[in-house]
């Protein structure tokens, strides 16, 4: 069974979801090293899903996964890469700009970059 046509693996989606949950739980428990590991795992799975959803004809979910990847990278401490992903998303389609700026402002407020 697939989530959005044969191009998207249920197993991949479930693994990614659970990595996000593990990361958030570790983050809430103050275990930043574990949170970073799981957020990075989730980010890489989101990159795979970004393309799979696009291939499956779900551009909305492709954008969602890309925002998810950037959010995970940011929360793993990979600020520059996260910002780059969000900027690419805005460049590719201006319609995403307000959403991306909202996500970026939220990340900056809750998880500020070290100066």
């Amino acid at each position: 069974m697939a989530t959005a046509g044969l191009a998207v693996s249920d197993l991949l989606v479930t693994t990614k979801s659970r990595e996000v949950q593990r990361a958030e739980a570790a983050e809430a428990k103050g275990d930043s090293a574990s949170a970073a590991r799981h957020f990075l795992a989730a980010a890489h799975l989101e990159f795979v899903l970004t393309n799979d959803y696009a291939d499956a004809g779900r551009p909305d979910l492709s954008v969602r996964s890309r925002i998810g990847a950037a959010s995970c990278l940011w929360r793993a401490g990979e600020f520059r890469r996260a910002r780059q992903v969000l900027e690419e998303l805005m460049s590719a389609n201006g319609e995403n700009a307000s959403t991306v700026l909202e996500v970026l402002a939220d990340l900056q407020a809750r998880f500020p970059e070290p100066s």
Partner: protein
Amino acid sequence: MRSLKFTAALERLSLFHPALIWGDIAAATAAVWTDLSELRPLTIEVENLRGYGKEQVVLIPSLNGLSVEAIQQSRRTFDSAKRVELAAIGVTGLALHYLAKHEIRDVTARGSGADYLVDEELHRLEIAGRSRKADLPAAWNDRKRRLARNAMPYVLSVVEFETPAARLGFFGE
């Protein structure tokens, strides 16, 4: 308005929504629910949820299968805001299942929060938890306004744990 009652078995969340991990969520839901002066039923105003309609639903909490130690551990591990956030996810998971066997399939990070996808159609689900009754209407209206900017259908759930009560709705189709 018709009112239906369900016994909400927290320990079964992992059977209702097998894609996700529910241990911390079930324990936090029990912790927040049992923080009330008594273990009160939770009333949900349902708006246009597919397979259900517009009704009022009452969830009667069942802590069977959850250990006291897991609930206490949740109180020690997560701060109160995080427990409320997790408890809102637990209540929403229960409500979606009991109302119309809806299943949460996916969770992703979105900024500092998370959003979810429901059922094979992968409708977006947003969940918010509040500790105070007075904060529910504002949280509901803010999220509805933001989610409506996107043309895609969505499910919205806001839970408050003072009464306790919730609103759950499906919009956009």
